[in-house]
């Protein structure tokens, strides 16, 4: 598979692949990195938001 890198497209067989993830109350995140001779040449991340600002509106009582 070809991977876009800082050197252009490269075959992933030439690269070291590292993956990671975070899953907490705020987000579910995955990322993938490709390294070449100790240099990071590609990093992508995918964040799924779980929480968002929530606003409550209240009507004031009259009288």
């Amino acid at each position: 598979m070809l991977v876009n890198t800082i050197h252009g497209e490269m075959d992933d067989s030439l690269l070291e692949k590292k993956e990671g993830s975070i899953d907490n109350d705020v987000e579910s995140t995955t990322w993938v990195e490709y390294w070449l001779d100790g240099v990071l040449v590609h990093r992508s991340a995918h964040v799924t938001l779980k929480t968002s600002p929530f606003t409550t509106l209240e009507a004031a009582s009259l009288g």
Partner: protein
Amino acid sequence: MANTQSMCTSFLGEVLTATHNFGSAPTRGAATADTFKGALYLVSATINASTTVYSSTGEVTGTNYTAGGVAITNATPPASTNTSSTAGVGYWTPSASITYTNVTLSTAFDTMLMYNSTQSNKAVSVHTFGSQTITAGNFTLTMPSNTTSAALLRLSTT
């Protein structure tokens, strides 16, 4: 300095004056939805409930990232649902993920500001996540489900 996830307080007032339009509103000059954008901000920035308008101060910079960010897909108008006889929830969620394609963002960022580019770049909401950098890759923000309990924007009455 730190970013804080929050509904921008200015937005609350602007909702009441129809400054923002996620759907159609016959009382406005244009009945079409406004254009909303998402801009990314560095961990060192200060984007929070006091933010009233998009600014490039503290915004990420890098290859293939345009100042101001990207347009947010809005194919589904806002909805509202009664949760009881006296309360309800109005909600809206972008209809597609927000993707920054083939970017290199070397300085850590952790915030996306949604703002209304049709209405003078007025701020809508601030969304934070774990610190990220991107190298010749994609950064994708997948939206929560468009429901009363999870939608990206939710206004509730009690």
